[in-house]
């Protein structure tokens, strides 16, 4: 098994999911099959490859050249940090199961 029962329980805890004993067994089996398949990534030598977190560098855009290739051109991706009026607080709070303007209410977190 690529993933143990304890690891399934630990992952569920990290993800704030409460699983029934049946679910633990099913997910262990299914995740094991998927992770075994994913092992094929180990067939490739990636020692000289930079990881790719984004398609386009955040400070450049691609421009199609005459030959159909792509050329990267810098552009200013950051906008001004300017305040803008935003009058949606009531609408936003109305979506919560429990709110008391201007707060969302949750069960007590700290005992004192």
């Amino acid at each position, binding site marked *: 098994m690529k*993933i143990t029962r304890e*690891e*399934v329980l*630990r*992952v*569920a805890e*990290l*993800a*704030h*999911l*409460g*699983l029934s004993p049946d*679910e633990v067994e099913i*997910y262990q089996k*299914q*995740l094991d*099959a*998927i*992770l075994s*398949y*994913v*092992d*094929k*990534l*180990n*067939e*490739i030598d*990636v020692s000289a*490859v*930079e*990881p*790719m*977190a*984004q*398609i*386009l560098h*955040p400070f450049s*855009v*691609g*421009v*199609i050249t005459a030959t*159909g*290739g*792509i050329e990267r051109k810098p*552009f200013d*991706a*950051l*906008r001004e940090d300017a305040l803008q009026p935003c009058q*949606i607080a009531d*609408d*936003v709070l109305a*979506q*919560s*199961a*429990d709110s008391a303007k201007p707060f*969302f209410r*949750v*069960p007590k*977190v700290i005992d004192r």
Partner: protein
Amino acid sequence: MSRSASWTVASIRAALLAKKISARELADEYYARIDRRNSELNAYLTLSRDRAYAQADRVDAAVSCGDNLPPLAGVPIAIKDVISTRGIRTTCASKILETYVPPYDATAVGRLDAAGAVFLGKTNCDEFAMGGSNENSAYGPVRNPAAPDRVPGGSSGGSAAAVTADLAVVALGTDTGGSIRQPGSFCGVPGLMPTYGRVSRYGLVAFASSLDKIGPFANNVPDAAAVLSVIAGHDPCDSTSAALPVANYPAEIEQSVTGLRIGVPEEYFADGLDPEVKQRVEAGIALLEKLGCRRVPLKMPHTGYAIAAYYIIATAEASSNLARYDGVRYGLRVPGSTLTEMYRQTRDRGFGPEVKRRIMLGTYALSAGYYDAYYLRAQKVRALIARDFSDAFQKVDAIVTPTAPTPAFRLGEKSADPLQMYLADIYTVTGSLAGVPGISVPCGKTSAGLPVGMQIFGPHFGESRVLQVARAVEHGLH
């Protein structure tokens, strides 16, 4: 019976201007058809008549005043239920957002509104866009209008089905690993995934932020181009949206394809491809050659690793994005004695099995001790797949493949085995990882009458080229 498309963007415009029909009458016509057929197809989750008729009335007022009509005036459109619509319930086909009503429009939606479109309603999909059959919706599967015992594909199955059954003229879908192209292929309508960054993601409920794209379905390629022209462009609310000018796609797609170099990668025609699908796509390629394209054999050596890389990266991003559903600010809240208990109960009750599976896989791939082995390695393989594409586009103008290895499968056929379902994404996830634009365009039918889709990839921001080749195929096959 599957396709009875009566209206196009252009014919609606002409009829409105000639006062042969009003936008309100057109909305009536579509709602009547939806009322007749939606209980069978389950394509729509929510109808938005109030907003639709208000939009239609605005168009009719403009017509009677003789004002210039915006580009999509009066066009009835369906919107996938993972895209935020102000005042219209947006569930992501999940129980956790069953009652959620967004206080704002996604940028793409706002642009459609300004362009005169009429929002018929929100379409069914796999929960949080996670799936390839629409069977992961918390509100029941969608049926394929072309073959009702079969899936419409996913995750944008409701949008594809709505357009196919003429329950909308055009629709918005989203594509993370194939969720526009594959349902387009299964239902037999064009579906376009734009370049990453071409259409703002602001207001799109996030699944995998480095992969998510919004794009159109239509009954013909020019209508897809018309919608793209409206929704594309830079948006200050999405720093990953590109500040490149938006082309006049409807005009550019009519250009001749003579002289274009069409790449055919051997990896997409290997074992596992249904022989009839292969035959249809080969016939489509032969058509392009007849039109003056040059066929160029390609090798894209990392194709076989794309599913493994995709399902690590997409689930890792999903596990992080879906952490926000905790019952505090919106959606379902299941009370608990402690805050942690409330989170757990809410998520346990609110998420379906596939969403939980992907959150678990992604959490595992990001967790201490496994990050390098899974997530980091997948990101490196992603770079190699992207390099396959950039190398290919040194030699060719477009790449042509099947969209999916099979035609639409039967409801329930793959739902018990998640890995088998993932493997069906083999031809679409490559382009998703590389961020290039891709379209699925109808390319004939199997002997059983099931639609087959041809996929066309272009270089980054090469939407015009992708649409142009798709248009040639569409035109040539009819």
